[in-house]
């Protein structure tokens, strides 16, 4: 079962910040500066925490994992936007045919 997580980080060193950003790209969607939206299984969460734990400075930096509950049926209840719209893409499969998504 996957849960949606917001992963937010505050990293004091630019080099580490860059590494954290790059690492997080493997785990989720870049939502805003220093905020990623991820869909984690319990294993993914373990893997992500481990990967970040190796990068950050444990006395200076902070990463927060905010659990927003199951992905299934989340819809747009949990996150609403003001300004630029936010949308969840919920499809049983990913089809890439070269045309932009309608």
């Amino acid at each position, binding site marked *: *079962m996957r849960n949606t997580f917001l992963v937010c980080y505050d990293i004091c060193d630019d080099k580490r910040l860059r590494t954290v950003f790059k690492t997080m*790209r*493997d785990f989720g969607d870049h939502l805003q500066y220093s905020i990623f939206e991820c869909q984690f299984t319990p294993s993914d969460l373990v893997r992500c925490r*481990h990967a970040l734990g190796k990068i950050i400075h444990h006395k200076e930096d902070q990463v927060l994992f905010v659990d927003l509950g199951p992905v299934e049926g989340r819809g747009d209840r949990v996150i609403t936007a003001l300004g630029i719209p936010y949308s969840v893409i919920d499809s*049983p*499969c990913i089809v890439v045919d*070269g*045309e932009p998504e309608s």
Partner: protein
Amino acid sequence: MLNEFVYCPRLFFYEWVEGVFAASADTLQGALRHEKLDAKTDALPAPENDGKIHSRSVMLSSETHRLIAGIDLVEGAAGVVTPVDYKKGRPRDTDDGPEAWPADRAQLCAQALILRDNGYRCDEAVAYYDATKQRVRVAIDEALVTETVQAIAAARALAAAGTIPPPLIDSPKCPRCSLVGICLPDETSFCDALPALASDAQLLLFGDDVEPLDRLVARTVATSEENVRRLIPARDDLRPLYVTGHGLIVGKRGEVLQIRNRDKTVQEVRVGEISQVSVFGNVQLTAATIQGLCWAEKPIAHFSYGGWFYGLTNGLGLKNVMLRREQFTKALDPVFCRGVARSMVASKIRNQRTLLQRNHLEPPTVILRQLKHYADLAGSAESLDELLGIEGIAARLYFEHFNGMLKIEAEGAGDAAPEFVLQLDHRNRRPPRDPVNALLSFAYSLLSKDLTITCHAVGFDPFLGFYHQLRFGRPALALDLMEGFRPLVADSTVITAINTRMVQPSDFIRIGPAVSLTASGRKGFLRAYEQRMDTLVTHPLFGYRANYRRILEVQARLLARVVTGEIATYPGFETR
């Protein structure tokens, strides 16, 4: 190894005899923890040394016990040592305070025995539990040594015998076991109980007439107090990726697949979130992509532009050859093949009947009765040829009434008559000559792809079937498994896609005699197919709900159980 054996002999058999492993959050956390511990490896000072001993990640072996162990930490001084093993979880709570679990005690005792064999003195061992940050001492006494030595011998005997032990019954160990989706403990026990009932019923009621499985099952389900526990998740949440665009290039950067059109990135997809990749026609994959997907054990299915399933790129896959060996032996046994094939064809016909009942406006009772008759005939057919005949007749009856399930009214009178009418004339293929046939063929192609992948995942050779006989390049076993699911998944997808207008007459083009889908039509149909695969259905035997993707795997694993002789009859999947 010993730890697993004491925990569950079946787990031991899977992991150490068959080489099957599945990761869960728990095993992953343990592995990552050990990665850190193992980063530092120290030499272990000889027992004659006087100094203090504190060595991490020590690899030692013992000739007398024929054991080898990696010990996380060895502590002590002057030849008297204590092995320390790091455990992710928590100790067992007893009235006398925390205690090490039996499996951990056996493992520590084996480590102590090895240390003793190497000239150290060792009277005590320690299990360190990470969850509670507790050290739990284990005394290496005579009783524990005897038990451990016995367990070692039993494990060796089991591995040598080569027959898998039965699953634990209703054990609290199962729900968090990482192999539960492979082992199917409760499902296997449940099916194991079925044939016993069958023979009773046979003796008492019907002479040599065997009670049909579905009735038997209905009775068993009704009499059993509760349904089978659902130990495997209903959805795996991984989505398939289809790349259909002409000239697209799939590259990989980190753990992200980048799908590019010339230099423009069309879409990025994380490897961790997909279950498989299907590519259609002229799509290029970089070497890094193929390697990465093989490593992550995500199969790549290759289709022609028109949707013909060419093949599969897989990682090294399962190391387990035992199931294959059994499969090859059993495929030579005509009685076995007949038994499995009967069940498959009967399920297919019953499912066709169910589909008609559900979707046809007014299903002709004659047809329903006939289909029922043929399903029963299939259940007792004498030969594969006879089955083939029965299947053919049933299919003809079914497809004659297929149109009744397509609810598409005539379009507005003002429009020009569309080139295509979404009606099935008669079933034809290679090439399909009308839109409905094209959709059916495409759906079967997708389904055979999914079942070929499932066969690989379970450890079968997809090309050797029990009902479908050998033919070059035909995934016969995948087609065998597919029979019962043709109406439920493929036909149903076609009906839904047409009735809800996910595909429309304008989504087809004619090329010569063949009719095929346009790019947008294909996209719509793929969505419809995957939506169907994602639908939750109740398993008729076990009473829990899971999606079709999961059900396909469960059925394949049940067939594997039949092949290895753990359960007697293959229970086909039939919905009500």
